[in-house]
């Protein structure tokens, strides 16, 4: 069977919203069950014990919240917050231990990626199509099994990400107050030539009372004041003024050339990886679609994202 042209497929999609909604529902439930490793509550009859839950693409998941929204063109898409076995509390407990920090970063590298091999070639579907079609747009192409052929799986995932996860500015980037003067999704982003690491955000209080982020630095020891508060009151053991940021490796083959003499990098305009939207290779390969995966480094971030997702 020949795959119809993109315009024809769009016409079919627009004419059959019920089927599209059905496919979206089944796809979302399949992702939650098989990629995330936990079914939504409304399809389960009982709670699965934490130890019996499979380890999915994001680790062992404790809980999640998913919100469905409609895009400008009317298609459904989802925003999700996942609470895994590596929560911000785990990060907070581990940030003072260099060994644990390195282990966490290695684990994060398995989950999220923000770089692509240099000059990723666009892959075309080899199956019969009415017009040349990218591999990820032809649903008949199935991702190789990573256990059987890891190299082919990586190539497939990178090929999909190269086609779907490179940011291009659009009208969406310029919505709201922030969008008036810059891309509100903060692209292009500064590359990071080093391995994935945890850093501390340093902020400064401005004369007008606002707090402005200044720099990312190596994590400093916990403040003596916070230590004392935690000793005096076990309920405040999590009190920690340090804001931890997960800096994911974001560089391509040319990035090492940008490393400056002081050990840092820069020139975001010269690096293609600045526009890569971070993704989970496993989910990208399976869905063959655009996804944006970010790691939250602290409890306030979790709270803000959760409230934003539920209130719009």
């Amino acid at each position, binding site marked *: 069977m020949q795959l119809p042209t993109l315009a024809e497929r769009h016409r079919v999609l627009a004419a059959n919203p019920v089927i599209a909604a059905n496919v979206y529902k089944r796809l979302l439930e399949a992702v939650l069950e098989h990629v995330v490793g936990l079914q939504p509550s*409304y399809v389960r009859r009982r709670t699965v014990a934490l130890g019996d839950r499979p380890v999915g693409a994001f680790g062992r998941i404790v809980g999640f*919240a998913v919100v*469905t929204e*409609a895009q400008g063109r009317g298609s459904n898409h989802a925003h999700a917050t996942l609470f895994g076995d590596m929560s911000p509390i785990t990060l907070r407990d581990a940030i003072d231990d260099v060994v644990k920090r390195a282990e966490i970063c290695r684990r994060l590298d398995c989950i999220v990626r923000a770089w692509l091999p240099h000059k990723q070639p666009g892959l075309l579907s080899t199956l019969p199509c009415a017009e040349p079609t990218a591999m990820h747009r032809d649903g008949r192409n199935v991702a190789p099994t990573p256990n059987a052929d890891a190299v082919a799986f990586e190539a497939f995932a990178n090929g999909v990400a190269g086609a779907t996860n490179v940011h291009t500015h659009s009208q969406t980037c310029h919505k709201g107050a922030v969008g008036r003067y810059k891309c509100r999704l903060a692209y292009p982003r500064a590359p990071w030539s080093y391995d994935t690491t945890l850093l501390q955000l340093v902020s400064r209080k401005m004369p007008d009372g606002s707090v402005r982020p200044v720099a990312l630095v190596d994590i400093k020891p916990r403040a003596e004041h916070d230590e004392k508060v935690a000793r005096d*009151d076990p*309920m*405040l*053991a*999590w009190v920690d003024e340090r804001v931890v940021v997960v800096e994911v490796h974001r560089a391509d083959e040319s990035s090492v050339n940008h490393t400056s003499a002081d050990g840092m990098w820069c020139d975001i305009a010269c690096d293609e990886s600045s526009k890569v939207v971070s993704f989970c290779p496993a989910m990208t390969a399976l869905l063959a679609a655009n996804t944006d995966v970010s790691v939250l480094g602290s409890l306030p971030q979790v709270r803000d994202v959760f409230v934003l997702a539920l209130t719009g």
Partner: protein
Amino acid sequence: MKYVVKDGNQLANVLSLIKKADEHLEAHPSIAADVGTRTRTAQHLMTRLINALNSDVEISGQVAASALHGMPSNIFSSDFDFCYILPALAHVQQLIKDGAEQLDDDESASDVDLSDAAMMQLLAAELDALPLDDAAAGDFDVDGAEGTYGVAGDAGADADGPSDDTLFADDEPRVLRNFVAQHDTYRHRGEALADFTLYEFCGVLAVKKGVADSAAAHVGAGRPSNARFPLDAQHPQSATHQVVLKSKLDVPILAGHTVPPHPGPRRGDPAWRRRANAFSAYVLTLHAPWNLETGVPDMPLTFESLVRYARKLSTSTSYIDRARLFWIRNLSQVCALACSIDVLSE
């Protein structure tokens, strides 16, 4: 009255909406193929105007189809249930006050430790100052003599329990139903569930019809039924209902006002003390098991006893104790930021 019956579709009454719709069109112009034509502009303006008049929004075909399929827009890994903490707190407050007054009246109670009596009176006075709705407890009283009983937790999200509408059956003539408050069910939960806290009780257990028979063993094929526990004999539903372990555990939602903030690092002034005791009473009522005899937690609801309780939990090897400490820290952490901002501004 004139304003209420004003015809919303009279031209003079919708001028402001037309202006608003026109501004919206300028800010978000049409992207249709025939944009700029008079027909398209008029259609766009009228659509916007009708939507504004009826407070409607345009939704796509896929969203409508998803809704008709019964797909929830918000999907969670767990279900939620309401925990009516404020009526429970008011109930505990009332019992402690009654206990303190009884100690006052009973001059012959020579075996009562004077320090305990003083603590009870002090605490009763402090609890009086808590920002609670006193009516919250009164509405839940059950005479236990007659009528049909329901469970407050089934009635909805009202912080004070069931609304007036739920107090009546649909049948004519209207029959007054007697509801059992959630905290009354928890208080009379029975010996087998003595170690459960109110928070755990809401998330793990449910009250259902039937009488638990602890001696009955599972017979026949199929999955064994969930564990069932008899209610205490003093519970008004003990003859007809039982406590059942839920198959799907719920995440309790704390109904009512915002959680009292953690008071922050110790300061000792009256304002700090008041906030500390409000927080302690809330947390201990929620996360410390109530005594089956007295119906209140086995410790004074003061900040000092809360810190002692938290220290005990932090040194425990039990997962349940560590989970309780996690929840308490969660409440403290949520409030800590607000608290620190508050302290800075003082």
